[in-house]
């Protein structure tokens, strides 16, 4: 039942001096009080912040989009992609849902063409010419619940999450390379179990990528 919505807003900014050829990707995850009674109003809690950091790490590790692609003019102008993820229904395994929502939203993003006016040094935006983002990789996460290193559960619900002894998220891309093996503590896990999780994650990546492609295709044809 978990529902996550991802909105991407693109804005223009100056690149940093350290990385003049790079744009910014700013992912933030919000777990508002709307999605579950466990969250209270106010600034994001530890879980939301850790999720934001996790998503940021996944973007960086998987190179889903390269920050260089967001550069419009070196040292002067670049895109900032604000990827805002909001959970609408928290029924466990929010990390997987976030990664999938993010990937689908990125695939659906259309940026307008921007040129820099050489005389006034101001950007000119042409809304009629739009192009999609260059998606290099398709990272997909698979989360597992572990109960005392004996029982493995795939895609845990909120109830299962509250009972588990440890949780593991494996993110893989289409080339079966691992982008993240995220296990924030909990009881220890043997090598065999870990291997089992990884092989399941690769299978899941293929399924999800197919699903996203299908959805994007249907969106395109309906437009």
């Amino acid at each position: 039942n978990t529902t996550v919505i991802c909105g991407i807003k693109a804005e223009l900014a100056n690149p940093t001096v350290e990385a003049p050829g790079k744009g910014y990707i700013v992912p933030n995850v919000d777990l508002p009080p709307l999605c579950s009674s466990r969250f209270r109003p106010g600034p994001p809690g530890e879980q939301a912040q850790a999720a934001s950091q996790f998503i940021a790490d996944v973007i960086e590790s998987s190179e889903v989009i390269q920050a260089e692609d967001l550069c419009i003019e070196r040292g002067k102008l670049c895109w900032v992609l604000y990827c805002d993820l909001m959970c609408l229904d928290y029924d466990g395994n929010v990390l997987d849902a976030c990664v999938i929502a993010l990937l689908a939203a990125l695939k659906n993003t259309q940026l307008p063409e921007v040129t820099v006016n050489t005389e006034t040094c101001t950007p000119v935006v042409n809304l009629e010419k739009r192009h999609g983002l260059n998606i290099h990789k398709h990272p997909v996460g698979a989360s597992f619940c572990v109960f005392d290193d004996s029982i493995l559960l795939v895609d845990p619900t909120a109830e299962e999450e509250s009972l588990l002894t440890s949780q593991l998220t494996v993110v893989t891309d289409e080339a079966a390379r691992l982008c993240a093996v995220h296990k924030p503590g909990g009881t220890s896990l043997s090598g065999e179990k870990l291997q089992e999780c990884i092989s399941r994650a690769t299978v899941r990546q293929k399924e999800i990528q197919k699903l996203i492609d299908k959805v994007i295709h249907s969106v395109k044809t309906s437009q």
Partner: protein
Amino acid sequence: MTSLISDEQILLFSGSMMEVCGSSKVTLREFGCEQSLLSRPDGSASFIQGETSVLAAAYGPAEVKVSKEIYDRATLEVLIQPKVGLPSVRERSREQYVRETCEASLLLSLHPRSSLTLILQVLHDDGSLLSCFLNAACMALMDAGLPMSCLFCGVTCAIDTDGQIITDPTAAQEKESRALMTFAIDSKERRVMMSSTKGSFSVPELQQCIAVSQKASEKIFQFYRDSVRRRYSKNL
């Protein structure tokens, strides 16, 4: 800035219960530890890995806020203070890693409705910071005398562009690496308690890194044992 850091380190190295472990096959940088160096907390430790150094303080079991009370176990809070500025999302994510690792090893159900607080202060970051946090945390919890089911240690591995695995990398090595992984290994069965990774890597590379970390953990646990033994032999 450098002079200030070296001052701090001289202070730490001059402590009475310093140990230094040399590096051999699985190369770890020199590490050192001092326990009970702060007087106010219930337990404290500093942990140094090469130039990276972290100060940890543990408080508890103490009274807990009503909103955070858990009826069947103690509430553990981990706070990470960066060297400069306010803690950001990155610190919060590391807090989660450290907290959940500590929660798994501590016997929290022995102190229901109470609070444990662990504060980690970065003194200097020269790579492998998360593993240093874990090691400092474990030493501080030991020093506080909190009941634990097992000990844990943190090991960071970096895979460089040639595919070589570097254990306990420096900040410069981290920057050049293709992938970076930190594991927490438990002392009972040498299994992976926590895993945090950055960059992309293949499955065999992951398995190799885990194996290397497990080997490295032997050394760290031996160091734990030596340093605690020396400390208590002196006190008696």
